[in-house]
């Protein structure tokens, strides 16, 4: 993985000391809250319902075990012994003291971590496929380009005060696990007719109040032009994006208002001015960064692996876990393991300090010291030998990290919601917990099959409800929690925005509504049809009829 050079380390360390000084000035009364707030936000420190919340960047979802142990230590020492992995592949601590924050940031800097670009109207941390570098279907490791974008965007003087926050996601695989079509800019690596690898550039996607699927602005962009083209897009957005209305300030609104053709023309004109200049990416620089993401020293393994095949035959529970939580690896004899942070009835994305330490130990023992964070709020061990899977599974079970539900109804995304978030209208976590408990029968879960349930506590959609197969949005109705349900959303390469099924449900009715939706699907599905396939075939009407039949 990427390692800091002197420049990176100096930049991060200086930032810590700047913030220490700013905190001291705030406490001493030299800075008012109005003056201090933008400064703390630029360092990932929010004031939430119960305390300060520190959002720590996990660039493109890749963590070393040294970094994960440091996060565990911070959870233990400065928080209440746990952290929360988010849909932005970040980690949030919910019980942070302002006075401790400079020391926490200093501790993070010792392991090449920070909280920069986790807040404010800048280019936020770039996200990527959590299977980057190991997926069987991958064309190229997207993290090389994420890191290049990271270096270009961090403290970019022209783009530090954009009209609004700006999110870029990159996938190097045809199957999009990074939800690139619902980002301000999505980059999808693919080969052109000449066989060269480059990017399809998508722009103007997003969720929130106005969900939009991104549109293609350039079908193929050669790699060397990546930064100049991004700069051209950002310049047009920075000039023309609205600053007078918070709800219309994202690039999706600009693209919609001028039209994709006109927007493309503006970007192309700008790009002609700046292309082939200092932002050109030399092959040598791409190769230098690629070196940081070189494959680990894999052993040459024979596949199939007899002890693994034997365990699959002998141990039904192990085989069930493999079916849902293990993904084929590009190397023979290896596997990608997803650690479910969704135990039955648990809080999606929460991990205790002890779990973080244990995962770090397992990643060292059964991998090459690397862990991934997925935007679906799970952790990933990217390089496990198949021969080790049975032993690893037994250990994960003792840690409550082996719930065999990845991709199923129990693998729910949920934002922190009103339990923590100052913006929320309703709680998300308890709804996720109730649904998870209700669908705790693993046989039933498998029978239902792939189903992505995503819950947000407000219209800002941190819980990605718009792109859930079943999306749940918390709303406040006269002081009570209600939940609006959408169906048919998807965040992958065939992305779609869910359709509202009808009037919202009370807090005690949501689980029943989800069950009715699932029962309707089970009743009408054709052989081999997943929930989303059925929905796309039959539409919303049959679900609506069942849900509101009694009303």
């Amino acid at each position: 993985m990427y390692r800091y050079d002197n420049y990176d380390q100096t930049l991060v360390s200086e930032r810590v000391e700047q913030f220490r000084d700013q905190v001291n000035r705030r406490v001493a009364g030299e800075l008012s809250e109005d003056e201090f707030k933008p400064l703390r936000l630029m360092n990932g420190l929010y004031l939430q319902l119960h305390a300060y919340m520190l959002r720590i960047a996990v660039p493109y979802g890749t963590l070393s075990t040294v970094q994960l142990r440091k996060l565990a230590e911070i959870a233990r020492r400065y928080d209440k012994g746990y952290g929360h992995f988010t849909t932005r592949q970040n980690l949030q601590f919910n019980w942070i003291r302002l006075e401790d924050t400079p020391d926490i940031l200093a501790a993070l800097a010792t392991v090449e971590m920070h909280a920069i670009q986790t807040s404010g109207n800048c280019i936020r941390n770039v996200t990527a496929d959590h299977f980057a570098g190991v997926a069987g279907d991958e064309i190229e490791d997207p993290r090389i380009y994420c890191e290049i974008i990271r270096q270009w965007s961090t403290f970019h003087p022209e783009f530090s005060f954009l009209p609004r926050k700006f999110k870029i996601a990159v996938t190097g695989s045809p199957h999009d696990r990074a939800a690139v079509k619902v980002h301000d800019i999505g980059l999808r690596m693919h080969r052109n007719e000449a066989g060269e690898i480059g990017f399809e550039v998508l722009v103007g996607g997003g969720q929130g109040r106005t969900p939009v699927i991104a549109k293609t602005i350039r079908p193929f962009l050669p790699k060397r032009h990546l930064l100049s083209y991004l700069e051209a897009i950002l310049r047009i957005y920075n000039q023309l994006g609205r600053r007078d209305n918070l709800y219309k300030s994202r690039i999706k609104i600009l693209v919609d208002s001028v039209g994709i053709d006109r927007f493309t023309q503006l970007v192309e004109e700008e790009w002609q001015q700046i292309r082939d200049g200092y932002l050109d990416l030399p092959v040598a620089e791409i190769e230098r960064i690629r070196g940081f993401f070189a494959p680990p020293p894999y052993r040459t393994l024979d596949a199939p692996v007899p002890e693994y095949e034997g365990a699959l035959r002998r141990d039904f529970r192990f085989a069930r876990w493999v079916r849902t939580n293990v993904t084929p690896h590009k190397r023979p004899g290896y596997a990608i393991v997803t650690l479910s942070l969704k135990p039955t009835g648990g809080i999606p994305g929460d991990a205790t300090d002890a779990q973080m330490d244990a995962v770090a130990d397992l990643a060292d023992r059964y991998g090459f010291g690397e862990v991934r964070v997925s935007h679906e709020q799970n952790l990933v061990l990217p390089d496990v030998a198949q021969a080790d899977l049975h032993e690893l599974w037994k250990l994960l079970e003792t840690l409550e990290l082996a719930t065999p539900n990845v991709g199923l109804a129990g693998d729910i995304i949920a934002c922190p919601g009103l339990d923590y978030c100052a913006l929320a209208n309703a709680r998300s976590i308890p709804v996720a917990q109730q649904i998870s408990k209700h669908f705790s029968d693993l046989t039933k879960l498998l029978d239902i099959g792939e189903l992505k349930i995503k819950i947000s506590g407000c219209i800002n959609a941190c819980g990605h409800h718009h792109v859930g197969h079943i999306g749940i949005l918390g709303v406040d109705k006269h002081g009570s929690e209600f939940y609006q349900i959408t169906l048919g959303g998807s965040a992958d390469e065939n992305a779609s925005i869910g359709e509202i099924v009808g009037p919202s449900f009370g807090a005690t009715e949501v689980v029943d509504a989800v069950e009715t939706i699932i029962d309707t699907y089970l009743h009408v599905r054709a052989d081999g049809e997943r929930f989303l396939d059925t929905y796309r075939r039959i539409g919303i009407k049959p679900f609506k009829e069942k849900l509101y039949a009694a009303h």
Partner: protein
Amino acid sequence: MTLQVVTANRLGDGRVVFLADGYRWVEEIGLAHVGDTDEAAKALLAIAEKAAADRIVVAPYLIGVSAEDDRIMPTRYREVLRALGPSSHPEFGRPPSATAAVHR
């Protein structure tokens, strides 16, 4: 009659606090000073704003509460969660003292 108390987050650690008698800030809503008229509430808020200027708390505001059997509870659910802690982590909650007297 609308009963109101002042709440804020403490500057140093961000914890939820309520304005009590004697210009004190307490973590337990049961100990908060309740204003039972608009004038009383305004006076409480003025004290709180001075405390914000003095860097004791951040962003104080008034919330509506009910007081039954001497038990003070916010009327809005958001404020109940602030007063009691996250419902999903009840072990972090702060049960309100049932015996706390309502200060008027």
